[in-house]
């Protein structure tokens, strides 16, 4: 079995496991995360509470299940924002290479990348208010140029290919060629990049919520759980350890999936990639 497959299988298993737990949380959790139990707070892992309880006596395993769902939703929506706006922009830029649209889009790209990563997100959430929705918006905006750039890069080389020229000769317009011929051929690139941005989104949600600019209480998210844990790390290390491990497993899974997919979809890259 090639390494690509090992990565892909391992990554998919990890993502499926964590995603499965998050889905399960929609219908069932070991304990209700909205019920506090102050008498049983900050308990280390035990037979009743496998991963212990938090400062309000809530079951950490249940919190992680619900929190993973929140984190995954935020990251997925941010990727969706990036795809919805980034793909048309990238296609447009490639179709009119070197034109005014292309130049403008690429310059705006540079501007977004000029902001230290997270800085733009922090600025946006700071001004618009801290909420899960604004975290989606903030990271979504960052995703737009990422996907625009990937789409443009893939589409540029396609426009030189013969099958595109024959489509042009047959009288198809730029928009139709982009949609019918270019887009399906850059989908591979977008899927791989999408997985990477998804993983990044989980980390961004965690970081923003950790500093209080993301998901707000009482909604559990993995980043929020770590924020709660910070001041209590001496008393209840399990409050920090387990949500962090959940983040690591999801991100690791997504990254492995991305690597595996890249090798699978573009065999030329196997072994040579970073």
């Amino acid at each position, binding site marked *: 079995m090639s390494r690509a497959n090992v990565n892909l299988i391992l990554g998919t298993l990890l993502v499926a496991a964590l995603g499965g737990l998050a889905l399960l949380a929609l219908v069932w959790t070991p304990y209700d995360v909205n019920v506090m139990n102050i008498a049983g707070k900050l308990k280390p892992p035990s037979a009743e509470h496998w991963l212990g309880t938090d400062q309000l006596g809530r079951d950490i395993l249940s919190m992680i299940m619900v929190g993973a769902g929140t984190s995954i939703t935020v990251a997925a929506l941010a990727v969706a924002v990036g795809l919805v706006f980034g793909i048309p922009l990238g296609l447009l830029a490639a179709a009119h290479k070197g034109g005014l649209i292309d130049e403008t889009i690429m*310059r*705006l790209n*540079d*501007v977004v*990348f*000029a*902001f*230290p*990563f*997270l*800085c733009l997100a*922090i*600025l*946006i959430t*700071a*001004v*618009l*208010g801290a909420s899960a929705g604004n975290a989606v918006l903030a990271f979504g905006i960052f995703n737009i140029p990422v996907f625009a750039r990937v789409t443009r890069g893939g589409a540029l080389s396609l426009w030189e290919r013969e099958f595109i020229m024959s489509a042009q000769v047959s009288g198809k317009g730029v928009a139709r060629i982009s949609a019918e011929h270019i887009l399906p051929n850059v989908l591979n690139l977008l899927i791989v990049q999408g997985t990477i941005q998804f*993983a990044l989104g989980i*980390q961004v949600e*965690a*970081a923003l919520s*950790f*500093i209080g*600019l993301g998901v707000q209480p009482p909604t559990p998210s993995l980043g929020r759980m*770590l924020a709660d*844990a*910070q001041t209590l*790390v*001496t008393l209840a*290390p399990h409050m*920090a*350890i387990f949500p*962090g491990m959940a*983040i*690591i*497993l999801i*991100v*690791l899974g997504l*990254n*492995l999936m991305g690597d595996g997919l890249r090798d699978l979809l573009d065999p030329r890259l196997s*072994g*040579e*990639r*970073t």
Partner: protein
Amino acid sequence: MLRYVLKRLLSLIVTLAVASMVIFAVIEVAPGDPASFMLGVNAQPDTVAALRTELGLDQPKAERYLSWIGNMLTGDFGTSYTYRSSVAQIIGDRLWVSVPLALYALILSTVIAFPAGIYAAARRGKAGDAAVMGGTQLGVAVPNFWFAMMLVLIFAINLRWFGAGGFPGWSKGVFPAIKALTLPAIALALPQAAILTRVMRSSLIDVLGEDFMRTARAKGLTRSQAIWRHGVRNALIPVLTILGLQVSFLIAGAIVIEQVFYLPGLGRLIFQSINARDLIVVESVVMLLVFAVVLINFLVDIAYSIVDPRLRQRT
């Protein structure tokens, strides 16, 4: 060469100009106007009016934007209304924490990544390579602030080798200051080291396939001599570019990490200013960070084009 530099310089200026407009615009869309946003809902109308005048909000937007930019160019970053002192002064103080922290982390990540990347490339496809690559996958996935908390738990609380946070300042001597920055720097360096290791490895693998490497072996150099004398040196070029890009991540990472360790750096300043709704400070610090990132990447590009003249034609 001169043409290339001028072209890059022009694009640097355009990027900075647009970025400054973006920052200005984001601050402008703050609910209500900045003055009432800063003072909160319970502020007296005349207090808001006074702050409006103080901030010059009664002037047209374009004029305010231009005077903000103009003042910044002359080193006047405005006056913080929470700290009641000049923003330039506040930033200057904070730089003494943030810049050493970033440099410390950069050095650490390089010290880890270079040997690890070279080792993995030299043992490509073997167990050692797989172990290093597995480690980098993990390193990329670990959130640095969580890693920071774990470091505090182990080295500050259990082993008591380091303090759990805070910064004594440089006046108390260099050693205590560096000690206080050590855990934060390690936490910041880890994900960067993982990325850098991967770049170093793949760059060296590319170089090892080059003809001149075969020539070096044919001359009678051993494999490791050839790797060290010819391979590593040539593999460094792309690595340096990534190192430049990492500055951006280090700065951003510092915002969160300074929070965990209660370090009085720029990151914590942004955070405190956001909580205090001190938009003047937020605006100026973000602009400064953007400037730093753009400038460093510009310098890396120029340095790169001096080393590798082929690049000048490309952009």
